[in-house]
């Protein structure tokens, strides 16, 4: 299973941060959550939840002097016994998906909440999805196919004759997946 982020849908409300910090750290503090919504404006307008992608080859482990980062059952874990809080992983992760807070000694990292991510459940915009891996990329495949259908006309051969089919011009509705 994979936690997928759909930034186009994110409203920037940070309910995911609240659900994570309340559920996992037991405090109402979005600065202690394992997912963060980055907001950029005005152009381009981006609201992007940043969270661990549980990479097959976890780059966050690069340079970890005590090999505290390991992968188990598809989840990248931090061995709290081995971790020496040097914070090397924070800069090694190419997505910036590990976080620090001065009250907490070791980095904060998403572990998918025992297979039921609280952030996914809480997201009011369905911008976070917890999918089987084979779903990944389907949105782009679908979008490519639908974009083709948005062309105003398609030429095709029917019984040796060249025919033209006109489509209604699609109005800029967002792809559903």
């Amino acid at each position, binding site marked *: 299973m994979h936690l997928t982020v759909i930034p*186009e*849908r994110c*409203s*920037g*409300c*940070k*309910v995911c941060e*609240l*659900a994570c910090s*309340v*559920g996992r750290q*037991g*405090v*109402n*503090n*979005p*600065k*202690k959550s394992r997912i963060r919504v980055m*907001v950029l*404006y*005005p*152009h381009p*307008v981006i*609201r992007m939840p940043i969270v661990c992608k549980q990479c097959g080859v976890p780059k966050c482990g690069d340079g970890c002097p005590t090999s505290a980062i390991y992968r188990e059952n598809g989840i990248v874990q931090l061995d709290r016994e081995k971790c020496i809080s040097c914070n090397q992983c924070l800069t090694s992760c190419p997505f910036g998906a590990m976080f620090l*807070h*001065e*009250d907490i000694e070791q980095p904060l990292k998403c572990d998918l909440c025992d297979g039921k991510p609280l952030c996914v459940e*809480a997201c*009011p*915009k369905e911008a976070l999805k917890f999918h089987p891996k084979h779903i990944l990329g389907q949105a782009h495949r679908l979008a490519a196919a639908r974009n083709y259908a948005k062309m105003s006309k398609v030429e095709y051969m029917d019984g040796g004759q060249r025919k033209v089919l006109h489509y209604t011009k699609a*109005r*800029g509705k967002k792809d559903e997946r």
Partner: protein
Amino acid sequence: MSVKGGYFFRILDVDLTRGETTIVPIDESFVLKYIGGRGFGARLVADHLKKSGGKCDPLGPENILVIAPGPLTGVYLPASGKNSFVTLSPATGIYGDSSMGGVFGVELRQAGYDAVVLRGRAPELSVLTIEDDRVGILPLPQAAGVSTLEAEKLVREATGDEDMKIASIGMAGENGVVFSCVNADWSRNAGRIGIGAVMGSKNLKSIAVRGSKDLPVYDLDALVRVSREGYDYLKSHEFFRFWQEQGLMSVVDYANAMGILPTHNFKETVFDRADKMNGYVMEDRYKISDTACFGCSMSCGNVCLVREGKYRGTVTEGPEYESAAMLGSNLGASNFAYILKANALCDDLGVDTISTGSIIGSMIEGLEKGILTQEDLDGDEITWGDEEGILRLIGKIAGREGVGDTLAGGAFAILKRWPDMEGVLSHVKGLEQSAYDARAAISMALGYGTSDIGAHHTRAWTVASELENGAGWGLEEKAEFVIYHQTIRPLFDMLGVCRLPWIELGFPEEYYQRFYQAVTGVERSMDDLLECSRHVYDLTRTINVTLGIDRKDDYPPRRTLVDPVPSGPTKGNVVDRDEYEKILDLYYEKRGWDSDGKPSLSL
């Protein structure tokens, strides 16, 4: 009663003249009585006014600006991103407040303060930085005259921090435009009553905040239970999806159908081209994404982009209903791309869209009626729907150029220069009317008339209920209904939450009592909480009475009492003056104020 959560019990007091900061402790009885946000602000402003002998120049260094989130701000519950700015208004000369959504207030609370009080005046244009316990005042002279967004960029450069939450004023705030705003998170504004000008008068361009603290919640488990129930309630509402899609822009069609949409400077109440500027036009052609304030599932913010034509490339969060109506139909303009441009320009310069639309509308009508001449407007000809002329005038207001210098002074300055504009410029107590016509609903007229900050709709938005359900209501019920609104609405501002889940999706009031109890550990009934907000309304009235307000100031805009609606579903409606006198008497009586509108409270 002992308070077990919800507060840090401290206020940050910043003297900008001396560059000194003090932590002022507050006690349990204070937080129990005033709750937070607008309640704290009202009390602190009242104390300050008392100390100043009942006199205070809103734009002098002696005025204070209180920034106060509430005990629920930033907490895991629906729409908890609100934060109040409270001061004495340069537009009206009396009490004023404005509440802002977004994430700024949450950050401020996480820095560990229940409120911030700003006083004095910095020696040069500056930014106030608050990073938990570290507070600093940095000179920012390079930000003089720049837009709110540019100011944010300059603050990020000066502090070297990309992640601070920043509230800034635009050129209008620096120039003392009495309806200038404070802007944060790109397009969230503390608008209407000139908070921007008060900040500008203190030589403060921006406030940058970073907070890291846990918000004090007494019973987290109980909170999570109630909140989940609350989020589920909203999600299951039949209009939830529609609200996410259109937000307040859905009101354009409603207001037009009901005959309350301000059109041609409030002369008319229906606009024949409303279907060119409604929520569907926005969705189909301009909207590129949704935005939400902190903790809110309703995401009423709409990010819009103009893809073609002369306004191509304009991108803004908005408009919402008020901005669309005041800059659109009220000025006889229906081109949605222009509305976006005007909205973006107002945000950049930091002026309030409602007052700007109201003032420009009155200028056009003034010219049309011959009260004003073209020379009065620097030789400029401006007519209904004149996009270029309107945009030019917005710029002149913010820059105080030519006639803009008078318009920047708001309703009072305009009426001082052209007294005959009284019947044309719709205002109460010097604050211009917002985008709901009141002629078909006397409760709305009473709401505008008795609002403590002037003609603003959020104090008592009763027009929809009266038009839909009020056919059998007597004056007494209508007066009570206005008081009910003026009592529950301040409570939202005091708690630090948004009223929209309640007013738009029927989110039950009881939830707020449950949230309050989970967060503070204090068991109180909803009636008890409403008693606090009722007291705060009496207090703001007392501030106003101290500053010279009485019955004569409690009337709706002149047009509401004089000019019948010319066409549409509310045709012929006008509020009868004798009826209004009667409802005003009833209102005072029910509030326990004397017949001149004076409460028995002292400051």
